[in-house]
């Protein structure tokens, strides 16, 4: 599903994973979760059970690494309505979000 470019971007992202956004202000995390619920939610469902876009639940995300998911978040998926969120999220933030989604989260 993910193309080569995304995979490469994902690998590059992995380098940032150690830093994570553990140090980020809790306020920023709250902002990202708000974005997830209401803006990602307009296609993926507010409870992430899917809509025009697929469900973002651990079972479905299992085949993908956090890095791959972060790359999809940042760069979008050409040919589908999934847009790139790079203007609004840093690479660390996307990776943090991808990790949360893989673990399972109810926003």
């Amino acid at each position, binding site marked *: 599903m993910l193309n080569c470019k995304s995979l490469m971007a994902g690998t590059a992202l992995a380098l940032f994973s150690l830093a994570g956004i553990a140090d980020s202000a809790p306020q920023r995390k709250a902002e990202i979760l708000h*974005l997830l*619920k*209401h*803006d990602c*939610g*307009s*296609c993926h*469902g*507010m*409870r992430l*059970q*899917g*809509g*025009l876009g697929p469900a973002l639940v651990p079972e479905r995300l299992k085949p993908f690494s956090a890095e791959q998911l972060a790359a999809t978040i940042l760069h*979008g998926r050409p*040919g589908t*309505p999934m*847009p*790139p969120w790079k203007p*609004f999220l840093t690479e660390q933030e996307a990776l943090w979000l991808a990790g949360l989604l893989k673990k399972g989260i109810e926003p």
Partner: protein
Amino acid sequence: MRWFFLIAAMLVPLAGQAAASPCLTRGTGDMGIIIERAAGSLQVVDTTAHSELFRVEGLGDLSHASAVYSRDARYAYIFGRDGGLSKVDLLCGTLVKRVVQGGNSIGGAISQDGRLIAVSNYEPGGVKVFSAESLELLADIPATRLPGGKGSKTVGLVDAPEQRFVFGLYDTGEIWIADLTDPKAPRLQRFKDIGRQPYDGLITPDGRYYIAGLFGEDGLALLDLWHPERGPSRILNHYGRGKKQLPVYKMPHLEGWAVAGDRAFLPAIGLHEILVVNRDGWQPAGRIQVHGQPVFVMARPDGRQIWVNFAFPNNDTIQVIDTETLKIIKTLKPGKGALHMEFTPRGEEVWISIRDLDQVKIYDTRTLEQTASLPADKPSGIFFTSRAHKTGL
């Protein structure tokens, strides 16, 4: 006469005690509902008094919820994202019945005669038809199967004259007309290759033309329901999206039909533009540069103004356009998450839900000033009962 009033006055408290629920005795013409998307509840409101009458809870996941009304405008049918179909009594403020009819639904419609409710589903793809009275399932219309067995997502479901429903199939690029004259045996007309990824649809208020917006192509598909045998044609080809496709942070909605005189107004996809179409021949008649990617483009009922809201990250703004000059006459900043607008039946007011402020703001459409507000929990869709008598709403 006096004894009559005396007896009536004595009876009133008794009647009040006897009644199981405090149902209202009034007309519903100046009533409506406000969806509270996160709480899974709705408010029943009085649009004359600007007040809440009831709060109805337990409606499930209401992200992207929409509603239609029974023809007596007493009941609202709410379509929830989680596949829930709920029937709410506006006069009693009660949830009459709720069925979970699919895994993931995107909207619905009520039939011309008011007897049938149709719901379109992403998961499993297709349309289900229910009795408006009992919510009993009457017909199941599965969508075209995709490789792997899943059904195509169905979108843009509307009611049409002659007891028909019309909808688009997102994954397979089709428009279907379903004739429900006999609900037990729907008659289908399928139109293939109408364009890639129809994402929403609308029907003109006269019920004649169905228009599907295409995400995967630059243009829209038009079907003349007076002459379905002629098949769909393409309008605004290579006009809307431009050469470089821009990312879309919220899919625009085609619900409603912003029309003023000979011109109709449509949201461009990905661009900060509204497309103007001449209804005579469906030719492009101009573009209006606006503040962001438009989501809802709605005409005041008299057609004199167009009100527009925008996708993230510009969803704190509303713009008002004069339909004669095509100029923006006002830019409002009502707050973050300005998700939906609804005009009062004759358009002197517009109600706007402001999600992040937990408020619905009410504007006078002549002065363009805010005149009132109502508290609401993460409000999204606002639906007034005047929709009960409009095709496609």
